[in-house]
C-alpha cells in the first residue's frame, strides 16, 4: 500500500473540494472495497477523504417515498421498518449480499460504487482494460463464469457485483450528487455505463462528485416485490444471476411490473423489454417465459457462461411466478 494522507471531512462541501482539488484523492466510505483494493494494489490514492461520518446517515420519509443518506450502512437500511414494509425487494437484496460484518460497515453510496469482482481486475499481474486501459482483457478466453451476457464489449466483459443496486434500479431510484459544480440528481439507471471502449469508467461521475443520497419514489405495488439470487454457495457469495421484481396484478393481468437483473452485465440491468412484454398481458408462466426470452434475445454469452442465459430466464420466471402466487 502506498502512503496516503487522511482527512476526516466536516461536511459534504469540504469533502468535495478536498477530492476535486487533488487528482490522486479518493472518498472513503466504509472502505470494505477500497481498503481491499489498496492492499491488492488495484487502487493507490494519495489522500483519503473520510465521508463515513458525515451527517448523511438517515433514512427519511418523503412524499410516499424514501430518501436514503449515502452513509447509511447496508445493515441499517435492510433493517429499516419502512424498507422492510414498502420495498421488500430492497431489504432482501441487501440481506443477500456480503456478510453480517461487512453489511455493518458498507455504506449505501459505497455499495453503488463498488467495483467488479472480475478476478483479472483484482489481480494486478494480469492485463485488464478496466484497471489499466489498453492493456487487454484477460477474461476473454479466460474464466468467465461470473461475467456478462448482456451489453459487454470486446474490451470488457465484467459484471457489476451489487445486489442492492439491482433492487434500486428496479425501483426507479434517483441519485443525489454533490460535485465541484454544485448539486444535481440523476436516475440510478443512468449513473452506470456499459463498458464500450472505456471500461475503466464504471459510472458517469466525474472526479470529486460525491453521492449524498438515494431517493426511492412512491411505488405502492413494491410491497409485493422480491429478490432472487442464484449463486455457487448458499450465502456470502456474489450472484451468478439475480432478479429484482415488483408485480402489480389486476385479476389475472399484469397491470404494472418492475424487473431488473444482476450478474449479467456491466451495470444493474433494467429489463425494459421484458417489462413492456408483460404489461397488460396475462400473469401466466408462459407469459413470464416469453418476456424473459424477449429480454435475453440480445444475450451474447461467453464460452464459460452460456448457462447463464437459461439460468436468467428461469430465475425471472420463478420470481414472477412466486409474486403472482403471493397475490392470489
Amino acid at each position, binding site marked *: 500500500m502506498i*502512503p496516503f494522507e487522511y482527512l476526516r471531512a466536516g461536511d459534504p462541501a469540504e469533502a468535495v473540494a478536498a477530492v476535486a482539488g487533488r487528482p490522486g484523492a479518493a472518498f472513503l466510505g466504509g472502505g470494505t472495497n477500497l*481498503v481491499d483494493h*489498496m492492499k491488492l494494489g488495484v487502487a493507490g490514492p494519495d489522500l483519503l477523504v*473520510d465521508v463515513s461520518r458525515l451527517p448523511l446517515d438517515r433514512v427519511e420519509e418523503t412524499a410516499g417515498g424514501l430518501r436514503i443518506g449515502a452513509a447509511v450502512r447496508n445493515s441499517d437500511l435492510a433493517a429499516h421498518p419502512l424498507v422492510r414494509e414498502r420495498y421488500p425487494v430492497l431489504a432482501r437484496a441487501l*440481506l443477500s449480499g456480503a456478510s*453480517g460484518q*461487512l453489511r*455493518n*460497515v458498507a455504506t449505501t453510496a459505497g455499495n453503488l460504487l463498488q467495483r467488479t469482482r472480475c478476478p483479472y481486475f483484482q489481480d494486478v499481474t494480469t492485463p485488464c482494460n478496466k484497471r489499466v486501459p489498453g492493456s487487454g482483457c484477460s477474461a476473454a478466453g479466460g474464466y468467465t463464469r461470473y461475467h456478462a451476457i448482456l451489453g459487454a464489449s470486446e474490451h470488457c466483459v465484467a459484471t457489476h457485483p451489487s445486489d442492492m443496486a439491482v433492487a434500486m434500479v428496479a425501483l426507479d431510484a434517483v441519485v443525489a450528487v454533490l460535485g465541484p459544480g454544485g448539486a444535481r440528481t440523476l436516475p440510478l439507471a443512468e449513473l452506470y455505463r456499459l463498458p464500450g471502449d472505456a471500461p475503466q469508467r464504471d459510472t458517469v461521475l466525474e472526479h470529486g462528485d460525491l453521492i449524498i443520497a438515494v431517493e426511492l419514489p412512491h411505488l405502492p405495488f413494491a410491497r409485493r416485490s422480491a429478490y432472487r439470487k442464484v449463486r455457487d454457495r448458499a450465502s456470502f457469495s456474489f450472484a451468478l444471476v439475480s432478479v429484482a421484481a415488483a408485480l402489480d396484478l389486476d385479476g389475472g393481468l399484469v397491470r404494472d411490473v418492475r424487473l431488473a437483473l444482476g450478474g449479467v452485465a456491466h451495470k444493474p440491468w433494467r429489463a425494459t423489454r421484458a417489462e413492456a412484454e408483460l404489461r397488460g398481458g396475462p400473469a401466466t408462466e408462459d407469459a413470464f417465459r416469453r418476456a424473459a426470452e424477449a429480454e435475453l434475445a440480445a444475450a451474447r454469452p461467453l464460452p464459460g457462461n452460456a448457462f447463464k442465459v437459461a439460468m436468467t430466464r428461469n430465475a425471472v420466471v420463478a420470481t414472477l411466478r412466486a409474486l403472482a402466487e403471493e397475490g392470489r
Partner: protein
Amino acid sequence: MDARITLRVDGRVRPLALDTRTTLLDALRDHLSVTSPKKGCDHGQCGACTVLLDGRRVVSCLILAVTCDGAEVTTAQGLAQEGEPHPVQRAFLEKDAFQCGFCTPGQVCSAVGMLEEVKAGHPSEVTDDLTGPVTLDDEEIRERLSGNLCRCGAYVNIVAALREEAES
C-alpha cells in the same frame, strides 16, 4: 503519514501513534498486543478478525485504524468479565465448538454481535416474514454466521452452541 488516535480496547483507553495505512486489526495485534483477533485472509472473507466496533460486529482487517479515533473496540478476550467467560464463550466450550481454535475468537465476536441483531428484530436473508419476529433456528444461525469460516469444519457444534444460547 503518521496519525495519532485513541481507542478504547476491551475497556482500556489506548492512545496510539500509527501509520495511516495500519488496519484496525494490525493496530490491535502489532501495536497493542491484543492478539485474540486473528489475521486469516486479510481481505474480509474469513471473519477470523471479527471484533465489536462500537457494539457492532465488523471485520477489523478492512477498517483503517485512523478512521476509528474515539471508538470502543471489544475483542474476544474483552468479552470475559472478571475471569468468567462470556455466555457465548461458555457455550462454545460446552458444545466443543472448535478444533484448532484459530477462527474461534472471530466466531465468538460475530455470534455476540449477531445475537444483538436478532434481539433488535433484524431479519436475515432466510427470514420468511420481513416484518415479523425472528426465530433463531439452525437455518438462521447458519445464514447469519456465514461471514465466519472454520476450516476445521466445527460448524455443526458452533450451530449447537448458538442454538443453546438462543434458547436461553
